[in-house]
């Protein structure tokens, strides 16, 4: 049974908003339906596919498995908050390699990749595999994802110099 609605304060992409939803509602649905940010996708509802990946306190989490109450007053970043123009190094690399096919999983893939590169500047293939294994791509773009992450790592380094 749904719990009573509650006013919860969410900080998404640098903007604080109040939402009035049952506290057990998964963060995913609040982001998509209450905040209207539809770049974050639903794929499984069970933290099995990664389509709903967002950053919570800078870490990649599956928003379908995070109750909205647990995300209150903590910084959340969605695909829309990564860059206004698609100019984040990871997005640039994704464009350069032409990664997406259907593209449905790609916001989640990109959010996982950004979190990986924030911690590991130049990941090996094995580190990429470990960090990205939670994100399913049914179109099979994995080879390009690996290439794009290596490229993004190079772009990020170049940018810092």
């Amino acid at each position, binding site marked *: *049974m*749904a719990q*009573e609605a509650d006013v919860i304060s969410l900080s998404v992409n640098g903007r604080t908003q109040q939402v009035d*939803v*049952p506290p057990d*509602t*998964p963060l995913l*649905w609040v982001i*998509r*339906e209450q905040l*209207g*940010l*539809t*770049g*974050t*996708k*639903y*794929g*499984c*509802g*069970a933290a*099995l*596919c990664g389509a709903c990946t967002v950053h919570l306190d800078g870490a990649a989490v599956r928003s379908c498995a995070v109750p909205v109450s647990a995300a209150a007053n903590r910084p959340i970043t*969605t*695909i*829309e908050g*990564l860059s206004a123009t*698609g100019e984040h190094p990871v*997005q640039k690399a*994704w*464009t350069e390699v*032409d*990664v*997406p*096919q*259907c*593209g*449905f*999983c*790609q*916001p989640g893939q*990109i959010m996982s990749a950004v979190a990986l590169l924030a911690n590991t500047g130049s990941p090996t293939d094995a580190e*990429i*595999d*470990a960090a*990205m*294994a*939670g*994100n*399913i*791509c*049914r*179109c*099979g*773009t*994995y*080879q*390009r*994802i*690996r290439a794009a992450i290596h490229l993004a790592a190079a772009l990020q380094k170049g940018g810092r110099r």
Partner: protein
Amino acid sequence: MTPRISRRTLLKGTLAAGAGLVVGFPLAGRSRALAQTPAVFAPNQWIRIDRDGVVTIVNSVPEMGQGSMTTTTMILADELDVPIDQVRIEQAPANPDLYKNPVTGSQSYGGSRGVRDHYPTWRKAAAAARTMLQQAAANRWGVPVESTETEPGAVVHKPSGRRLAYAQLVDEAQTLPVPQNPKLKTPDQFRYIGKMVKRRDTPDKITGRGIYGMDVVVPGMLVASIERCPVLRGKVKSFDATATKRIPGVRDVVQVTNGVAVVADSFWTALQGRRALKVQWDEGALAQVSSPAIAKEYERLSKQPGQAARNDGDAEKALGAGGKVIEAVYQVPFLEHACMEPMNATAHVTKDACTVWAPTQNPGGTLATAMRLTGLPKEKVTVHTTLLGGGFGRRGEQDFIVDAVEVAKAVGAPVKVMWTREDDITHGFYRPSTYNVFRAALGPDGKPTAWHNRIVGPGLLIQKGRSPDYQIDGAAVEGARNMPYDIPNLRVEFVNKDFGVPLGFWRSVGASQNGFIVESFIDEVAHAAGKDPFEFRRDLLGKSPRHKAVLELAATKANWGAPLPPGRGRGIAVVFSYNSYMATVAEVSVAPDGLVRVHRFVSAIDAGLAVNPDQVKAQVEGGSVYGLTATLYGQITVDRGRVQQSNFNDYPMLRINEMPVVEVHILDSGEALGGLGEPGVPTVAPAVCNAVFAATGKRIRTLPIDRNELRKA
């Protein structure tokens, strides 16, 4: 204002596009409305140019990841001669009069048909538009049209150095007749076709801006989720929604064809509502059907003769002639598509209008479904095709459209009906499971003298009413009856046995499973003959030069025959599907615990002409993953009519840590165009299983691979 386009002329082309087909293409011209707004040059339904020089190309093929938005645009922009990066792309409305596939006659996209079926039509349409612009410039300059040429976005007259942008010719071009046989570019004049062009949909797909069906938002929209009978094809007997209706945010509960819909303010609330429902089901006949019984009945039927799908020479006689006989049984399971975006659609139905927003491969079918359910004429029904989060054949079906239109009609507000992943996997349209018996005979020279293949399983086309049940089901024998090896006595039979599990077109359809069985068994025959599997195949492909060419290319690029590290094996396969030829070499190792690791695929594909080579590679890369998932994991089983898998925990997908290197080599043969969405799949399972045999000596005859059978004792 967007000009309304209507059909004006019918160009009767004699474009050769398959046996005996005369492709007529309706070139929609200037309607009365357009004549009053001459600011737009709209010579046909795919192209518009306005006075500001904005070129709009209408993409009539749904974008499901195969890159139609880019490829369609490349072909039209090249022949029209406009800069591709400045073209606006619009998704076509559902309007089969204008946008039906000229070969199939319906506005539905499957069968890897997007490019190959439209290529001549689009080129002719764009060439006609370009010729009209050239004529308009020639008229203004008072020079013969033949003395003009184009550069991107402009007509030029080189002798006098004059130049007019297309934008400046819009009004005049619009008054000219549409040429019936415009001169096409020669391949050396192509600016985009055959070159690597970046996908046009990438910017929207990496920023979250792209709108998939699930992302549609309509003012006043409600969200619904449908409780479906756990038994396939079961129906609602009765239901009690008392507890559901008490949940804040639940707006309505309505019975529809596919179950009981809970309509709410949000998806999460709708799900809570579903949990509180009490539904009595009429489970129907499938409640008596379970996978083990299906397999047992297939086996029984496999001992009886089937209908002959092909019969060369006398296979029975040759099998009894005293040579070495090889026999094997191959089995493949039901499979679900598992598009990343679960099924969904949005609809708004009023007394006199219906609008549907859907991630559909079948806009024409969606239009027909909406008309049927609302009783409205086609002028009152609008279908918006969104981006598709995967298609793979699943999204040609109408069930999710029926959901949205029925619920929207019942509640009178716009409604988005969304499926859960569990709904998606348990209520799919499954790739048929089959049971396949093979026998082959070898002559004294080690060459096969006979091949006998009996396929037992449900006919997909028969179940869907597209083929009468007294005929051979074309999908069931696709890839088996047209196997390419030159064997004098060859018989392929089909036994139709359908238990009623809903069937669907699963990426590469019959070729997905028959590619596996044929290419695995020919491997067995090669080994029985003591021959190298590549050389054995090549020697039997004398009558199939395009098969042979891709087989040789893949083998060469994979260094076939070169030594491998210990524990590794190579396997090879070649399959024709959707007018394309594809060969794959797989390199695998098998761990002591039976875990199969695929290290590398080297593939060669001949799709005639590679319009966008990088996207040809992308489709083969994608097909490799789709095929490998099925080889290693894919299996849908049924217990008393209930699908036993439900999410990615029990219906797993290949993940990045299991991704092999995929190397793709394109063979541009200059032949008629082939498809690309599907041909990347069928070679994968046999190449992998043949490589497993090479590495371990164990032959995989049932998919998915059971690692327990490969475990070292």
